[in-house]
């Protein structure tokens, strides 16, 4: 019988003659993986056994058998999976062999690895293990997951991969570049100036204290609690008749009486309660995610770690950053708070990603980070767009309004009172105009827009993919044009684009930016 792949052979050990590049022997996952998997699968078992535990159900024996089958199959499966799983790192690739029935051999070339994320949920922190997630692209799906290895092993894997990548880069920079291997994201970044010392010791860019994280949460409103309540209700499936009889016995009677006495106050209080709950949840969610947020510059990579219950560590290679996005909203901006995101691009051109570089910070802090990594500064002198944009916005929205009023008038009833929204539209148009602006410098171009969601793009000119300007018939009549600077990895509707600039100015901005790109 012909074996299509040599899965039944013992795994090939890594070549050991490479002195410069440390390689690993084939390894198993941490033995405690099995314990963790069993623990993680327990809720499902409890769910299956729920009728048995409640007792008195005539079909409970069925669930009992189900539970027994679960133990007979799942536990050995977990053990087999553990025994089958092997991973190792050769100087060229990360190899993962896995699978019980379907065996999978996955080889991930080291040079393609973008980001190695280390994640520790509470259980893993108790057991001293971690999940290692290997990304080959800016974001999207993980290519390889090792769950779980010991935390030291996780860090070792990251170091080994980083060293191997640096060795590869040093090798590559001495050999010729070809068309196929040209970096699509930017001009091939010279990374050989990264010295060993710089790579090993990081430069701390920012750390957020608990007070700041709580503040960040206070500006965030989360409805996640609703989902939790609903899934909890679904999980325990309360018996409606039991609930009804419990209510009839009158534990909530005083409350009921009060609601009946003053329904308006009850409604206001209810809404207030819901908002407070959302506000509190927002704070808790933010604390859980960004507790001890720390951003460091290690070599040519941004290193980020954060989390309260689940610890996360990840890296963003600077060369993969396509543009910097400053995000805020009217409330946050009134208090001078911003959030800094980076738009990254992976090996796969279709994949885009946004990662948070600073969840909540002052403008000076953002500027300091940008300066430390040698990226565009937040501009302080902006050029506004043409005031004619207010007129265009009003014309557009009045047209839509008239159509709505007309249609409803014909088919149903006159609703001329809807015209009362016109002043609101005018206010919105004014705010919209005031938010729209652009700026450019020798090395970057920045655009800003938005009323509620205020976004500022800062695009380094050397990350430009294509650029241009366009004008529809209405814009041409008013002598206006929209400009755009396209970068890799932007998602649709979230790229640097700004409408209604005076046509001659639009053309000159674009040709200025392009001639800087050309250098």
């Amino acid at each position, binding site marked *: 019988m012909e074996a299509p792949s040599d899965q039944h052979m013992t795994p090939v050990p890594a070549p050991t003659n490479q002195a410069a590049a440390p390689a690993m022997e084939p390894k198993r996952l941490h033995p405690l993986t099995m314990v963790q998997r069993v623990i993680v699968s327990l809720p499902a078992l409890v769910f299956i056994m729920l009728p048995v535990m409640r007792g008195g159900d005539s079909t409970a024996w069925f669930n009992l058998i189900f539970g027994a089958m679960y133990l007979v199959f799942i536990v050995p499966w977990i053990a087999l999976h553990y025994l089958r799983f092997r991973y190792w790192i050769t100087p060229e690739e990360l190899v993962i062999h896995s699978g019980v029935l379907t065996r999978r051999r996955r080889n991930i070339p080291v040079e393609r690895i973008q980001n190695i994320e280390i994640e520790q949920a509470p259980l893993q922190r108790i057991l001293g293990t971690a999940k290692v997630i290997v990304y080959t692209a800016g974001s999207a799906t993980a290519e390889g997951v090792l769950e779980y290895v010991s935390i030291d092993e996780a860090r070792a894997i990251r170091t080994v991969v980083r060293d191997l990548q640096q060795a590869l880069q040093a090798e590559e920079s001495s050999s010729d570049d070809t*068309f196929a291997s040209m970096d699509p994201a930017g001009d091939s970044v010279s990374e050989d100036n990264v010295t060993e010392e710089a790579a090993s010791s990081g430069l701390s860019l920012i750390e957020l204290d608990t007070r700041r994280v709580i503040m960040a949460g206070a500006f965030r409103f989360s409805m996640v609690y609703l989902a939790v309540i609903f899934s909890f209700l679904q999980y325990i499936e309360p018996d409606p008749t039991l609930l009804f009889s419990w209510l009839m016995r009158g534990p909530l009677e005083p409350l009921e009486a009060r609601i009946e006495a003053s329904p308006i106050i009850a409604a206001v209080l209810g809404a207030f309660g819901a908002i407070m709950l959302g506000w509190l949840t927002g704070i808790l969610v933010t604390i859980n995610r960004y507790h001890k947020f720390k951003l460091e510059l290690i070599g040519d990579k941004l290193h980020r770690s954060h989390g309260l219950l689940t610890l996360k560590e990840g890296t963003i290679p600077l060369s993969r950053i396509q543009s910097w996005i400053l995000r805020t909203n009217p409330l946050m901006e009134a208090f001078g708070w911003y959030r800094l995101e980076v738009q990254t691009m992976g090996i796969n051109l279709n994949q885009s990603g946004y990662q948070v570089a600073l969840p909540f910070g002052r403008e000076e802090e953002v500027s300091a980070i940008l300066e430390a990594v040698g990226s565009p500064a937040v501009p302080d002198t902006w050029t506004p767009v043409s005031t004619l944009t207010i007129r265009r916005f009003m014309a557009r929205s009045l047209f839509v309004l008239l159509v709505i009023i007309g249609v409803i008038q014909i088919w149903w009833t006159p609703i001329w009172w809807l015209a009362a929204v016109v002043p609101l539209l005018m206010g919105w148009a004014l705010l919209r105009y005031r938010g729209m602006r652009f700026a450019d410098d020798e090395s970057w171009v920045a655009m800003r827009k938005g009323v509620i969601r205020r976004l500022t793009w800062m695009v380094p000119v050397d990350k430009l993919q294509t650029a241009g300007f366009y004008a529809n018939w209405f814009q041409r009549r008013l002598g206006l044009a929209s400009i755009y600077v396209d970068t890799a990895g932007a998602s649709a509707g979230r790229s640097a684009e700004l409408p209604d600039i005076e046509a001659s100015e639009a053309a000159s901005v674009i040709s200025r930016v*392009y001639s800087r790109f050309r250098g």
Partner: protein
Amino acid sequence: MSFDDLTSLDGSIVKVWRLKTGIFLGILALAVLIWDILGAFQSDRLLPFGAWAGMAIVLAFSISWWLPPLRYRYWGYELREEELLLVRGIFNRVHTIIPLRRIQHLDVSQDIFEREFDVAKLIVHTAGTRSSDVILPGLHQDLAESLRDDMKQFITDQAL
């Protein structure tokens, strides 16, 4: 960066576009005609038989006759030293600069109509998201290939 004095497309593309829009709108007009015939004997007709179908056919014919020359008139391209410039659009006029060193790969393609008139389109792929595939239609087959070779040459020279 001046977008003046751009090169026009090959004149045959007007015929290709006329043919394509004609076929597309012709099918729509045919649907209207069938609908008209099916309702020919209904008593509560708004318009006499053939009025809708006639309008649809006249409209289809005039659009496919007048629109392609207009499209042609506003199309322009120019391959400069380090970039490809494009201008296009009747209603929404778009000016695009594609730096040659941003090109990922290039395709020259022809459909059956284009093959009949010896024109081809050049498809330029970049890593951008807004306009990752830029299509330059209506080039003579030989011109499309020589443009592609020139750009390829630039990329290869640049990489060395």
